[in-house]
Protein backbone atom coordinates (compact mmCIF):
# COMPACT_ATOMS: atom_id res chain seq x y z
CA UNK A 1 0.00 0.00 0.00
CA UNK A 2 1.13 3.52 -0.76
CA UNK A 3 0.30 4.67 2.76
CA UNK A 4 2.72 2.12 4.22
CA UNK A 5 5.41 3.35 1.88
CA UNK A 6 4.69 6.90 3.01
CA UNK A 7 5.04 5.81 6.62
CA UNK A 8 8.44 4.31 5.81
CA UNK A 9 9.47 7.60 4.20
CA UNK A 10 8.36 9.53 7.28
CA UNK A 11 10.36 7.24 9.60
CA UNK A 12 13.40 7.74 7.39
CA UNK A 13 12.94 11.50 7.40
CA UNK A 14 12.52 11.52 11.19
CA UNK A 15 15.69 9.41 11.57
CA UNK A 16 17.74 11.75 9.36
CA UNK A 17 16.43 15.12 10.45
CA UNK A 18 15.50 14.35 14.01
CA UNK A 19 11.78 14.90 13.43
CA UNK A 20 9.02 15.55 10.95
CA UNK A 21 7.72 19.12 10.91
CA UNK A 22 4.00 19.84 11.01
CA UNK A 23 1.21 18.17 12.92
CA UNK A 24 -0.65 15.43 11.17
CA UNK A 25 0.58 13.69 8.10
CA UNK A 26 -1.19 13.92 4.78
CA UNK A 27 -1.24 10.30 3.73
CA UNK A 28 -3.76 10.35 0.89
CA UNK A 29 -5.70 12.95 2.83
CA UNK A 30 -5.29 11.38 6.27
CA UNK A 31 -5.16 10.89 9.21
CA UNK A 32 -6.89 14.27 9.46
CA UNK A 33 -8.52 14.80 6.07
CA UNK A 34 -7.69 18.28 4.72
CA UNK A 35 -10.02 18.04 1.75
CA UNK A 36 -13.78 17.62 1.97
CA UNK A 37 -14.76 13.98 1.90
CA UNK A 38 -13.88 10.80 3.72
CA UNK A 39 -10.22 9.95 3.04
CA UNK A 40 -10.73 10.63 -0.66
CA UNK A 41 -13.24 7.76 -0.91
CA UNK A 42 -15.76 7.96 -3.74
CA UNK A 43 -19.20 9.25 -2.71
CA UNK A 44 -21.03 7.60 -5.60
CA UNK A 45 -19.89 4.37 -7.26
CA UNK A 46 -18.17 4.63 -10.65
CA UNK A 47 -19.69 2.50 -13.43
CA UNK A 48 -18.68 -1.17 -13.50
CA UNK A 49 -19.09 -1.31 -17.29
CA UNK A 50 -16.13 -2.43 -19.40
CA UNK A 51 -15.23 -2.02 -23.10
CA UNK A 52 -18.41 -3.77 -24.30
CA UNK A 53 -20.65 -0.84 -23.37
CA UNK A 54 -18.91 1.98 -25.30
CA UNK A 55 -18.59 -0.39 -28.25
CA UNK A 56 -22.32 -1.13 -27.95
CA UNK A 57 -23.06 2.62 -27.89
CA UNK A 58 -21.10 2.89 -31.15
CA UNK A 59 -22.71 -0.06 -32.94
CA UNK A 60 -26.18 0.72 -31.57
CA UNK A 61 -25.97 4.28 -32.88
CA UNK A 62 -24.58 3.15 -36.22
CA UNK A 63 -27.24 0.47 -36.69
CA UNK A 64 -30.14 2.60 -35.53
CA UNK A 65 -29.33 5.51 -37.78
CA UNK A 66 -28.59 3.17 -40.73
CA UNK A 67 -32.22 2.16 -40.55
CA UNK A 68 -33.19 5.85 -40.76
CA UNK A 69 -31.07 6.24 -43.90
CA UNK A 70 -32.58 3.00 -45.26
CA UNK A 71 -36.11 4.31 -44.88
CA UNK A 72 -35.15 7.65 -46.47
CA UNK A 73 -33.50 5.96 -49.41
CA UNK A 74 -36.33 3.48 -49.99
CA UNK A 75 -38.83 6.35 -50.09
CA UNK A 76 -36.79 7.95 -52.86
CA UNK A 77 -36.12 4.70 -54.74
CA UNK A 78 -32.45 4.10 -53.86
CA UNK A 79 -33.06 0.39 -53.39
CA UNK A 80 -29.39 -0.67 -53.50
CA UNK A 81 -28.47 1.86 -50.82
CA UNK A 82 -31.45 0.77 -48.71
CA UNK A 83 -30.32 -2.87 -48.91
CA UNK A 84 -26.78 -2.09 -47.72
CA UNK A 85 -28.12 0.19 -44.97
CA UNK A 86 -30.51 -2.53 -43.80
CA UNK A 87 -27.69 -5.09 -43.74
CA UNK A 88 -25.68 -2.72 -41.51
CA UNK A 89 -28.73 -2.05 -39.32
CA UNK A 90 -29.54 -5.75 -38.93
CA UNK A 91 -26.00 -6.95 -38.25
CA UNK A 92 -25.27 -4.04 -35.90
CA UNK A 93 -28.62 -3.90 -34.12
CA UNK A 94 -29.77 -7.49 -34.05
CA UNK A 95 -26.43 -9.34 -33.76
CA UNK A 96 -23.50 -7.24 -32.50
CA UNK A 97 -25.39 -5.03 -30.03
CA UNK A 98 -27.23 -7.81 -28.15
CA UNK A 99 -24.05 -9.90 -28.00
CA UNK A 100 -22.06 -6.98 -26.53
CA UNK A 101 -24.80 -6.20 -24.01
CA UNK A 102 -25.10 -9.81 -22.90
CA UNK A 103 -21.31 -10.10 -22.60
CA UNK A 104 -21.25 -7.13 -20.24
CA UNK A 105 -23.84 -8.59 -17.86
CA UNK A 106 -22.57 -9.98 -14.58
CA UNK A 107 -24.79 -13.00 -15.17
CA UNK A 108 -25.17 -13.37 -18.94
CA UNK A 109 -27.42 -16.45 -18.69
CA UNK A 110 -30.11 -14.31 -17.06
CA UNK A 111 -30.22 -11.78 -19.92
CA UNK A 112 -33.89 -12.55 -20.66
CA UNK A 113 -34.80 -11.10 -17.25
CA UNK A 114 -34.37 -7.73 -19.00
CA UNK A 115 -37.81 -8.33 -20.52
CA UNK A 116 -39.47 -9.32 -17.23
CA UNK A 117 -40.82 -5.82 -16.62
CA UNK A 118 -41.51 -2.62 -18.56
CA UNK A 119 -40.37 0.41 -16.57
CA UNK A 120 -40.62 3.76 -18.29
CA UNK A 121 -38.69 5.37 -15.42
CA UNK A 122 -35.67 3.14 -16.06
CA UNK A 123 -33.66 4.08 -19.17
CA UNK A 124 -32.02 0.63 -19.05
CA UNK A 125 -35.42 -1.09 -19.21
CA UNK A 126 -36.57 1.21 -22.02
CA UNK A 127 -33.32 0.47 -23.85
CA UNK A 128 -33.84 -3.27 -23.60
CA UNK A 129 -37.32 -2.88 -25.09
CA UNK A 130 -36.14 -0.44 -27.78
CA UNK A 131 -33.37 -2.84 -28.83
CA UNK A 132 -35.83 -5.76 -28.90
CA UNK A 133 -38.35 -3.78 -30.94
CA UNK A 134 -35.60 -2.65 -33.31
CA UNK A 135 -34.47 -6.25 -33.79
CA UNK A 136 -38.06 -7.35 -34.35
CA UNK A 137 -38.44 -4.75 -37.12
CA UNK A 138 -35.06 -4.78 -38.78
CA UNK A 139 -34.71 -8.55 -39.33
CA UNK A 140 -38.09 -9.12 -41.05
CA UNK A 141 -37.60 -5.80 -42.87
CA UNK A 142 -34.28 -6.96 -44.31
CA UNK A 143 -35.66 -10.40 -45.25
CA UNK A 144 -38.72 -8.91 -46.96
CA UNK A 145 -36.57 -6.37 -48.81
CA UNK A 146 -34.14 -9.03 -50.05
CA UNK A 147 -36.93 -11.39 -51.12
CA UNK A 148 -38.62 -8.54 -52.96
CA UNK A 149 -35.46 -7.31 -54.75
CA UNK A 150 -34.55 -10.81 -55.89
CA UNK A 151 -38.16 -11.47 -56.98
CA UNK A 152 -38.14 -14.87 -55.26
CA UNK A 153 -41.91 -15.05 -55.07
CA UNK A 154 -43.82 -13.84 -58.10
CA UNK A 155 -47.24 -12.19 -58.19
CA UNK A 156 -49.41 -11.16 -55.30
CA UNK A 157 -47.07 -12.41 -52.57
CA UNK A 158 -44.33 -10.13 -53.92
CA UNK A 159 -46.67 -7.15 -53.57
CA UNK A 160 -47.30 -8.25 -49.98
CA UNK A 161 -43.51 -8.47 -49.38
CA UNK A 162 -43.05 -4.98 -50.81
CA UNK A 163 -45.58 -3.50 -48.40
CA UNK A 164 -44.22 -5.54 -45.46
CA UNK A 165 -40.66 -4.36 -46.23
CA UNK A 166 -41.87 -0.76 -46.26
CA UNK A 167 -43.66 -1.07 -42.93
CA UNK A 168 -40.81 -2.91 -41.20
CA UNK A 169 -38.16 -0.52 -42.54
CA UNK A 170 -40.21 2.43 -41.37
CA UNK A 171 -40.62 0.75 -37.96
CA UNK A 172 -36.90 0.11 -37.68
CA UNK A 173 -36.25 3.77 -38.51
CA UNK A 174 -38.49 4.88 -35.62
CA UNK A 175 -36.94 2.47 -33.12
CA UNK A 176 -33.53 3.11 -34.67
CA UNK A 177 -33.56 6.80 -33.77
CA UNK A 178 -34.49 5.84 -30.22
CA UNK A 179 -31.78 3.16 -30.14
CA UNK A 180 -29.18 5.73 -31.15
CA UNK A 181 -30.32 8.40 -28.67
CA UNK A 182 -31.53 6.53 -25.56
CA UNK A 183 -27.95 5.65 -24.62
CA UNK A 184 -27.43 9.34 -23.87
CA UNK A 185 -30.44 9.26 -21.54
CA UNK A 186 -29.09 6.03 -20.01
CA UNK A 187 -25.91 7.64 -18.75
CA UNK A 188 -27.40 11.13 -18.40
CA UNK A 189 -29.96 10.04 -15.79
CA UNK A 190 -27.49 8.69 -13.23
CA UNK A 191 -25.79 9.93 -10.08
CA UNK A 192 -22.44 10.49 -11.87
CA UNK A 193 -21.87 14.29 -11.87
CA UNK A 194 -20.10 14.71 -15.22
CA UNK A 195 -22.85 12.65 -16.86
CA UNK A 196 -26.00 14.18 -15.37
CA UNK A 197 -24.71 17.73 -15.80
CA UNK A 198 -24.60 17.06 -19.58
CA UNK A 199 -27.80 15.05 -19.84
CA UNK A 200 -29.20 17.22 -22.64
CA UNK A 201 -25.98 17.18 -24.63
CA UNK A 202 -25.46 13.41 -24.42
CA UNK A 203 -28.53 12.20 -26.40
CA UNK A 204 -27.88 14.85 -29.07
CA UNK A 205 -24.24 13.83 -29.33
CA UNK A 206 -24.90 10.07 -29.37
CA UNK A 207 -27.74 10.36 -31.89
CA UNK A 208 -25.87 12.67 -34.23
CA UNK A 209 -22.67 10.63 -33.97
CA UNK A 210 -24.76 7.60 -34.95
CA UNK A 211 -26.23 9.38 -37.98
CA UNK A 212 -22.83 10.64 -39.17
CA UNK A 213 -21.25 7.21 -38.67
CA UNK A 214 -24.01 5.51 -40.66
CA UNK A 215 -23.66 7.99 -43.53
CA UNK A 216 -19.86 7.71 -43.41
CA UNK A 217 -19.83 3.91 -43.44
CA UNK A 218 -22.23 3.83 -46.41
CA UNK A 219 -19.98 6.27 -48.26
CA UNK A 220 -16.95 4.11 -47.52
CA UNK A 221 -18.88 1.15 -48.94
CA UNK A 222 -19.07 2.99 -52.24
CA UNK A 223 -22.30 4.96 -52.09
CA UNK A 224 -20.84 8.38 -52.87
CA UNK A 225 -24.09 10.28 -53.34
CA UNK A 226 -25.00 13.87 -52.52
CA UNK A 227 -27.65 12.86 -49.97
CA UNK A 228 -25.12 11.02 -47.80
CA UNK A 229 -22.65 13.88 -48.19
CA UNK A 230 -25.36 16.23 -46.90
CA UNK A 231 -25.95 13.99 -43.87
CA UNK A 232 -22.19 13.94 -43.28
CA UNK A 233 -22.12 17.74 -43.32
CA UNK A 234 -25.16 17.92 -41.04
CA UNK A 235 -23.60 15.58 -38.44
CA UNK A 236 -20.23 17.36 -38.56
CA UNK A 237 -21.87 20.76 -38.07
CA UNK A 238 -23.92 19.55 -35.10
CA UNK A 239 -20.82 17.92 -33.58
CA UNK A 240 -18.86 21.16 -33.99
CA UNK A 241 -21.62 23.07 -32.20
CA UNK A 242 -21.59 20.46 -29.41
CA UNK A 243 -17.82 20.83 -29.09
CA UNK A 244 -18.27 24.57 -28.60
CA UNK A 245 -21.16 24.01 -26.19
CA UNK A 246 -19.07 21.55 -24.15
CA UNK A 247 -16.17 23.98 -23.88
CA UNK A 248 -18.42 26.88 -22.84
CA UNK A 249 -20.74 24.99 -20.50
CA UNK A 250 -18.12 24.11 -17.87
CA UNK A 251 -19.05 23.30 -14.28
CA UNK A 252 -15.66 23.59 -12.57
CA UNK A 253 -14.74 20.68 -10.30
CA UNK A 254 -18.11 19.03 -10.90
CA UNK A 255 -17.37 17.98 -14.49
CA UNK A 256 -13.60 18.32 -14.60
CA UNK A 257 -13.28 14.72 -15.81
CA UNK A 258 -14.46 16.03 -19.21
CA UNK A 259 -11.75 18.65 -19.43
CA UNK A 260 -8.87 17.03 -17.53
CA UNK A 261 -7.12 13.66 -17.34
CA UNK A 262 -6.98 11.05 -20.09
CA UNK A 263 -10.78 11.01 -20.26
CA UNK A 264 -10.70 14.71 -21.18
CA UNK A 265 -8.32 13.97 -24.03
CA UNK A 266 -10.55 11.15 -25.33
CA UNK A 267 -13.54 13.51 -25.38
CA UNK A 268 -11.53 16.28 -27.05
CA UNK A 269 -10.00 14.01 -29.70
CA UNK A 270 -13.36 12.39 -30.38
CA UNK A 271 -15.15 15.71 -30.75
CA UNK A 272 -12.48 17.21 -33.00
CA UNK A 273 -12.49 14.14 -35.27
CA UNK A 274 -16.29 14.13 -35.62
CA UNK A 275 -16.74 17.91 -35.65
CA UNK A 276 -14.30 20.44 -37.17
CA UNK A 277 -11.92 17.93 -38.80
CA UNK A 278 -14.54 15.99 -40.75
CA UNK A 279 -16.22 19.27 -41.66
CA UNK A 280 -13.00 20.64 -43.16
CA UNK A 281 -12.17 17.35 -44.90
CA UNK A 282 -15.64 17.22 -46.43
CA UNK A 283 -15.31 20.83 -47.55
CA UNK A 284 -12.15 19.96 -49.48
CA UNK A 285 -13.88 16.97 -51.06
CA UNK A 286 -11.91 14.36 -49.12
CA UNK A 287 -15.10 12.44 -48.38
CA UNK A 288 -13.65 8.98 -47.54
CA UNK A 289 -11.11 10.49 -45.14
CA UNK A 290 -13.85 12.61 -43.55
CA UNK A 291 -15.96 9.46 -43.14
CA UNK A 292 -13.08 7.60 -41.50
CA UNK A 293 -12.41 10.59 -39.24
CA UNK A 294 -16.06 10.71 -38.18
CA UNK A 295 -16.31 6.96 -37.52
CA UNK A 296 -13.09 6.99 -35.51
CA UNK A 297 -14.14 10.10 -33.58
CA UNK A 298 -17.52 8.71 -32.62
CA UNK A 299 -15.86 5.48 -31.43
CA UNK A 300 -13.26 7.38 -29.39
CA UNK A 301 -15.79 9.73 -27.81
CA UNK A 302 -18.00 6.79 -26.70
CA UNK A 303 -14.99 5.35 -24.86
CA UNK A 304 -14.28 8.88 -23.63
CA UNK A 305 -17.70 9.28 -22.03
CA UNK A 306 -17.43 5.95 -20.17
CA UNK A 307 -13.94 6.96 -19.00
CA UNK A 308 -15.39 10.29 -17.84
CA UNK A 309 -17.99 8.38 -15.80
CA UNK A 310 -15.33 6.24 -14.15
CA UNK A 311 -13.19 9.25 -13.20
CA UNK A 312 -16.05 11.54 -12.22
CA UNK A 313 -17.71 8.79 -10.17
CA UNK A 314 -14.50 8.14 -8.21
CA UNK A 315 -13.99 11.83 -7.47
CA UNK A 316 -15.76 12.89 -4.24
CA UNK A 317 -15.13 16.59 -4.85
CA UNK A 318 -16.98 16.50 -8.16
CA UNK A 319 -20.06 15.07 -6.41
CA UNK A 320 -20.00 17.78 -3.73
CA UNK A 321 -19.46 20.48 -6.37
CA UNK A 322 -22.28 19.17 -8.59
CA UNK A 323 -24.78 19.30 -5.75
CA UNK A 324 -24.37 23.05 -5.63
CA UNK A 325 -25.95 23.29 -9.09
Amino acid sequence: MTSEKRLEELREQAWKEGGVPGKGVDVAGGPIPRKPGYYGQAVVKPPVWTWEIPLYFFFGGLAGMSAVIASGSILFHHVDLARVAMWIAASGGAVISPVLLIMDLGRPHLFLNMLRVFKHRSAMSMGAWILSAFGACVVPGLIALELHTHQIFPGLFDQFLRIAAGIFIFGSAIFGTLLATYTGVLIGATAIPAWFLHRTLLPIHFGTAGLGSAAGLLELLGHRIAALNFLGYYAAVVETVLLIWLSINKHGAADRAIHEHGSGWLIRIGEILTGPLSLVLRFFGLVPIAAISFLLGSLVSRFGWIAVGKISGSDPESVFAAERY
Partner: protein
Amino acid sequence: MIGEGIKSTNQRKHSYVQDRVEVGFFTDPSVCIGCKACEVACKEWNQVPDDGFTWSGNSYDNTGHLGASTWRHVMFLEQDRHKGNQVAGPMSLGDGEDPFRWVFLSDVCKHCEEAGCLEACPTGSIVRTEVGSVLVQNDVCNGCGYCVVSCPFGVIDRRPEPLPDAGGAFKCTFCYDRQKSGLVPACAKVCPTESIVFGRLDDLRARGAERVQQLQQSGYSDAQLYDPTETSVRGIHAFFLILGEPEAYGLPPKPQVPTIYLKSAWTAAFATAIASIIAALAAFAFFS
Protein backbone atom coordinates in the same frame (compact mmCIF):
# COMPACT_ATOMS: atom_id res chain seq x y z
CA MET B 1 -32.84 1.94 24.78
CA ILE B 2 -29.95 0.80 26.95
CA GLY B 3 -31.30 -0.38 30.29
CA GLU B 4 -34.58 -1.61 28.86
CA GLY B 5 -33.16 -5.11 28.54
CA ILE B 6 -35.18 -7.39 26.32
CA LYS B 7 -37.86 -4.70 26.09
CA SER B 8 -35.52 -2.55 23.97
CA THR B 9 -36.64 -2.35 20.33
CA ASN B 10 -33.18 -3.68 19.48
CA GLN B 11 -33.88 -6.92 21.35
CA ARG B 12 -37.58 -7.73 21.46
CA LYS B 13 -39.45 -9.76 18.88
CA HIS B 14 -41.75 -7.84 16.56
CA SER B 15 -44.28 -8.31 13.78
CA TYR B 16 -43.48 -5.27 11.65
CA VAL B 17 -43.48 -7.26 8.39
CA GLN B 18 -46.89 -8.78 9.10
CA ASP B 19 -48.28 -5.43 10.30
CA ARG B 20 -46.70 -3.54 7.36
CA VAL B 21 -45.10 -0.96 9.64
CA GLU B 22 -42.39 1.30 8.23
CA VAL B 23 -39.15 0.60 10.06
CA GLY B 24 -35.75 2.23 10.10
CA PHE B 25 -32.28 2.45 11.51
CA PHE B 26 -31.14 5.41 13.57
CA THR B 27 -27.35 5.46 13.83
CA ASP B 28 -25.82 7.71 16.46
CA PRO B 29 -22.03 8.25 16.34
CA SER B 30 -21.98 10.01 19.73
CA VAL B 31 -22.29 6.65 21.48
CA CYS B 32 -20.47 4.48 18.93
CA ILE B 33 -17.25 2.93 20.24
CA GLY B 34 -15.99 1.74 16.85
CA CYS B 35 -16.00 -1.96 17.79
CA LYS B 36 -17.15 -3.03 14.29
CA ALA B 37 -19.40 -5.72 15.81
CA CYS B 38 -22.09 -4.59 13.34
CA GLU B 39 -19.77 -5.28 10.40
CA VAL B 40 -18.97 -8.73 11.78
CA ALA B 41 -22.56 -9.62 12.64
CA CYS B 42 -23.70 -8.55 9.17
CA LYS B 43 -21.07 -10.67 7.45
CA GLU B 44 -21.81 -13.66 9.70
CA TRP B 45 -25.58 -13.63 9.36
CA ASN B 46 -25.74 -12.82 5.66
CA GLN B 47 -22.73 -14.99 4.79
CA VAL B 48 -21.12 -12.11 2.95
CA PRO B 49 -17.66 -13.05 1.64
CA ASP B 50 -14.57 -11.12 2.67
CA ASP B 51 -13.47 -8.43 0.26
CA GLY B 52 -9.75 -8.50 0.86
CA PHE B 53 -7.48 -7.83 3.79
CA THR B 54 -5.70 -4.59 2.99
CA TRP B 55 -4.36 -2.03 5.37
CA SER B 56 -5.66 1.40 4.41
CA GLY B 57 -3.69 3.60 6.81
CA ASN B 58 -6.83 5.72 7.26
CA SER B 59 -7.25 5.72 11.03
CA TYR B 60 -8.61 2.32 12.15
CA ASP B 61 -10.75 1.92 9.06
CA ASN B 62 -9.51 -0.91 6.89
CA THR B 63 -12.95 -1.56 5.41
CA GLY B 64 -12.93 1.55 3.22
CA HIS B 65 -16.41 1.89 1.84
CA LEU B 66 -19.76 0.18 1.41
CA GLY B 67 -19.96 -2.24 -1.48
CA ALA B 68 -21.18 -5.57 -2.77
CA SER B 69 -19.51 -7.42 0.10
CA THR B 70 -19.62 -4.68 2.76
CA TRP B 71 -23.10 -3.83 3.96
CA ARG B 72 -22.11 -2.15 7.23
CA HIS B 73 -19.03 0.06 7.36
CA VAL B 74 -17.74 1.75 10.48
CA MET B 75 -16.13 5.08 9.61
CA PHE B 76 -13.28 6.46 11.71
CA LEU B 77 -13.04 10.22 11.43
CA GLU B 78 -10.09 12.06 12.89
CA GLN B 79 -10.83 15.76 13.01
CA ASP B 80 -9.01 18.76 14.46
CA ARG B 81 -12.11 19.98 16.24
CA HIS B 82 -13.52 19.85 19.75
CA LYS B 83 -15.93 17.08 20.63
CA GLY B 84 -18.60 18.85 22.61
CA ASN B 85 -17.13 20.68 25.58
CA GLN B 86 -13.98 18.56 25.48
CA VAL B 87 -10.82 20.40 26.58
CA ALA B 88 -7.48 19.60 24.96
CA GLY B 89 -5.35 18.14 27.74
CA PRO B 90 -1.67 18.42 28.65
CA MET B 91 -0.84 15.61 26.18
CA SER B 92 -1.65 18.04 23.40
CA LEU B 93 1.08 18.62 20.86
CA GLY B 94 1.98 22.11 19.64
CA ASP B 95 1.43 25.20 21.68
CA GLY B 96 -1.90 25.97 23.25
CA GLU B 97 -5.08 24.91 21.45
CA ASP B 98 -4.79 21.65 19.58
CA PRO B 99 -8.29 20.25 19.48
CA PHE B 100 -8.79 16.72 18.26
CA ARG B 101 -11.73 14.35 18.08
CA TRP B 102 -12.30 10.83 16.94
CA VAL B 103 -15.78 10.08 15.61
CA PHE B 104 -17.12 6.65 14.66
CA LEU B 105 -20.19 6.20 12.49
CA SER B 106 -21.59 2.94 11.18
CA ASP B 107 -22.65 3.55 7.56
CA VAL B 108 -25.26 1.42 5.82
CA CYS B 109 -27.65 1.43 2.85
CA LYS B 110 -30.01 4.36 3.37
CA HIS B 111 -33.16 2.59 2.08
CA CYS B 112 -34.35 5.77 0.37
CA GLU B 113 -37.97 6.83 0.14
CA GLU B 114 -37.33 7.42 -3.60
CA ALA B 115 -34.61 4.86 -4.31
CA GLY B 116 -32.39 5.39 -7.37
CA CYS B 117 -31.40 1.72 -7.58
CA LEU B 118 -35.00 0.54 -7.43
CA GLU B 119 -36.11 2.95 -10.16
CA ALA B 120 -33.17 1.99 -12.38
CA CYS B 121 -33.41 -1.81 -12.12
CA PRO B 122 -34.55 -3.14 -15.53
CA THR B 123 -35.31 -6.67 -14.32
CA GLY B 124 -37.57 -5.83 -11.39
CA SER B 125 -35.05 -7.54 -9.16
CA ILE B 126 -34.99 -4.63 -6.72
CA VAL B 127 -38.26 -4.25 -4.82
CA ARG B 128 -39.77 -2.34 -1.92
CA THR B 129 -40.69 -4.57 1.03
CA GLU B 130 -43.65 -4.35 3.42
CA VAL B 131 -41.50 -2.49 5.96
CA GLY B 132 -40.39 0.13 3.43
CA SER B 133 -36.88 -1.21 2.89
CA VAL B 134 -35.28 -1.74 -0.54
CA LEU B 135 -34.40 -5.35 -1.32
CA VAL B 136 -32.37 -6.95 -4.15
CA GLN B 137 -33.80 -10.32 -5.15
CA ASN B 138 -30.58 -12.03 -5.95
CA ASP B 139 -31.99 -14.83 -8.10
CA VAL B 140 -33.53 -12.28 -10.50
CA CYS B 141 -30.60 -9.84 -10.86
CA ASN B 142 -28.68 -10.32 -14.10
CA GLY B 143 -25.87 -7.95 -13.18
CA CYS B 144 -26.48 -5.14 -15.67
CA GLY B 145 -24.82 -2.66 -13.31
CA TYR B 146 -27.29 0.19 -13.83
CA CYS B 147 -28.22 0.40 -10.14
CA VAL B 148 -24.52 1.00 -9.34
CA VAL B 149 -24.47 4.36 -11.13
CA SER B 150 -28.02 5.24 -10.05
CA CYS B 151 -27.43 5.19 -6.29
CA PRO B 152 -26.80 8.77 -5.06
CA PHE B 153 -25.01 7.36 -1.99
CA GLY B 154 -22.69 4.88 -3.76
CA VAL B 155 -23.99 1.94 -1.73
CA ILE B 156 -24.87 -0.85 -4.14
CA ASP B 157 -22.19 -2.55 -6.24
CA ARG B 158 -21.69 -5.53 -8.51
CA ARG B 159 -19.72 -8.34 -6.87
CA PRO B 160 -16.56 -9.15 -8.82
CA GLU B 161 -15.09 -12.56 -9.62
CA PRO B 162 -14.00 -14.85 -7.99
CA LEU B 163 -16.23 -14.21 -4.97
CA PRO B 164 -19.26 -16.46 -4.46
CA ASP B 165 -22.41 -15.29 -6.31
CA ALA B 166 -20.20 -13.00 -8.42
CA GLY B 167 -21.82 -10.85 -11.10
CA GLY B 168 -24.92 -9.86 -9.17
CA ALA B 169 -25.61 -6.55 -7.42
CA PHE B 170 -25.56 -6.66 -3.63
CA LYS B 171 -26.32 -4.34 -0.74
CA CYS B 172 -27.83 -4.35 2.74
CA THR B 173 -31.06 -6.36 2.86
CA PHE B 174 -32.22 -4.74 6.12
CA CYS B 175 -32.10 -8.39 7.27
CA TYR B 176 -35.45 -8.94 5.59
CA ASP B 177 -35.17 -12.66 6.31
CA ARG B 178 -34.73 -12.02 10.03
CA GLN B 179 -37.48 -9.41 10.07
CA LYS B 180 -39.96 -11.82 8.51
CA SER B 181 -39.43 -14.08 11.53
CA GLY B 182 -39.87 -11.19 13.96
CA LEU B 183 -36.14 -10.79 14.61
CA VAL B 184 -34.13 -7.58 14.69
CA PRO B 185 -31.48 -6.93 11.96
CA ALA B 186 -28.16 -8.50 12.98
CA CYS B 187 -26.22 -5.21 13.22
CA ALA B 188 -28.74 -3.58 15.58
CA LYS B 189 -29.11 -6.76 17.63
CA VAL B 190 -25.38 -6.95 18.28
CA CYS B 191 -24.62 -3.23 18.79
CA PRO B 192 -23.31 -3.06 22.40
CA THR B 193 -24.02 0.66 22.91
CA GLU B 194 -27.21 0.84 20.88
CA SER B 195 -25.54 3.32 18.58
CA ILE B 196 -27.55 1.51 15.90
CA VAL B 197 -31.21 1.55 16.87
CA PHE B 198 -33.84 -0.43 15.01
CA GLY B 199 -37.52 0.35 15.31
CA ARG B 200 -40.58 2.05 13.88
CA LEU B 201 -39.49 4.89 11.58
CA ASP B 202 -41.71 7.54 13.18
CA ASP B 203 -40.52 6.60 16.68
CA LEU B 204 -36.91 6.76 15.53
CA ARG B 205 -37.36 10.16 13.88
CA ALA B 206 -38.75 11.57 17.14
CA ARG B 207 -35.95 9.93 19.07
CA GLY B 208 -33.32 11.33 16.68
CA ALA B 209 -34.65 14.88 17.03
CA GLU B 210 -34.64 14.50 20.81
CA ARG B 211 -31.06 13.21 20.80
CA VAL B 212 -29.86 16.15 18.68
CA GLN B 213 -31.40 18.57 21.14
CA GLN B 214 -29.85 16.73 24.07
CA LEU B 215 -26.40 16.80 22.45
CA GLN B 216 -26.63 20.44 21.49
CA GLN B 217 -27.53 21.36 25.05
CA SER B 218 -24.47 19.53 26.32
CA GLY B 219 -22.09 21.38 24.03
CA TYR B 220 -22.14 19.45 20.75
CA SER B 221 -23.12 22.54 18.80
CA ASP B 222 -22.49 20.83 15.42
CA ALA B 223 -24.79 17.84 16.04
CA GLN B 224 -27.48 17.45 13.36
CA LEU B 225 -29.61 14.80 11.73
CA TYR B 226 -28.68 13.55 8.26
CA ASP B 227 -32.00 12.76 6.61
CA PRO B 228 -32.39 14.44 3.19
CA THR B 229 -36.16 14.93 3.24
CA GLU B 230 -35.88 18.24 1.33
CA THR B 231 -34.34 16.69 -1.82
CA SER B 232 -35.89 14.37 -4.40
CA VAL B 233 -34.75 11.39 -2.29
CA ARG B 234 -37.55 12.45 0.10
CA GLY B 235 -35.99 11.02 3.22
CA ILE B 236 -34.18 7.84 4.14
CA HIS B 237 -35.15 4.85 6.27
CA ALA B 238 -31.66 4.49 7.71
CA PHE B 239 -30.81 7.96 8.93
CA PHE B 240 -27.89 9.27 10.94
CA LEU B 241 -26.95 11.73 13.59
CA ILE B 242 -23.74 13.45 12.51
CA LEU B 243 -21.28 15.79 14.16
CA GLY B 244 -20.19 18.42 11.66
CA GLU B 245 -20.73 18.44 7.93
CA PRO B 246 -22.06 15.48 5.94
CA GLU B 247 -19.16 15.81 3.45
CA ALA B 248 -16.68 14.63 6.10
CA TYR B 249 -18.57 11.33 6.29
CA GLY B 250 -18.60 10.95 2.52
CA LEU B 251 -22.34 11.67 2.59
CA PRO B 252 -23.69 13.84 -0.25
CA PRO B 253 -25.17 17.06 1.22
CA LYS B 254 -28.00 17.20 -1.33
CA PRO B 255 -28.52 13.73 -2.82
CA GLN B 256 -30.92 13.52 -5.77
CA VAL B 257 -32.66 10.48 -7.22
CA PRO B 258 -31.46 10.34 -10.87
CA THR B 259 -34.98 9.92 -12.27
CA ILE B 260 -35.39 13.71 -11.95
CA TYR B 261 -32.97 14.04 -14.88
CA LEU B 262 -35.09 11.85 -17.17
CA LYS B 263 -37.39 14.57 -18.47
CA SER B 264 -34.71 16.85 -19.90
CA ALA B 265 -32.66 13.92 -21.22
CA TRP B 266 -35.62 12.28 -23.01
CA THR B 267 -36.65 15.65 -24.43
CA ALA B 268 -33.19 16.00 -25.97
CA ALA B 269 -33.37 12.39 -27.21
CA PHE B 270 -36.76 12.85 -28.91
CA ALA B 271 -35.67 16.16 -30.43
CA THR B 272 -32.56 14.48 -31.85
CA ALA B 273 -34.63 11.56 -33.14
CA ILE B 274 -37.02 13.87 -34.98
CA ALA B 275 -34.19 16.07 -36.30
CA SER B 276 -32.38 12.97 -37.65
CA ILE B 277 -35.47 11.72 -39.48
CA ILE B 278 -36.07 15.17 -40.98
CA ALA B 279 -32.41 15.46 -41.99
CA ALA B 280 -32.48 12.03 -43.67
CA LEU B 281 -35.71 12.79 -45.55
CA ALA B 282 -34.46 16.24 -46.58
CA ALA B 283 -31.16 14.75 -47.76
CA PHE B 284 -32.89 12.37 -50.16
CA ALA B 285 -35.60 14.82 -51.18
CA PHE B 286 -33.26 17.67 -52.12
CA PHE B 287 -30.00 15.97 -53.05
CA SER B 288 -31.00 13.10 -55.30
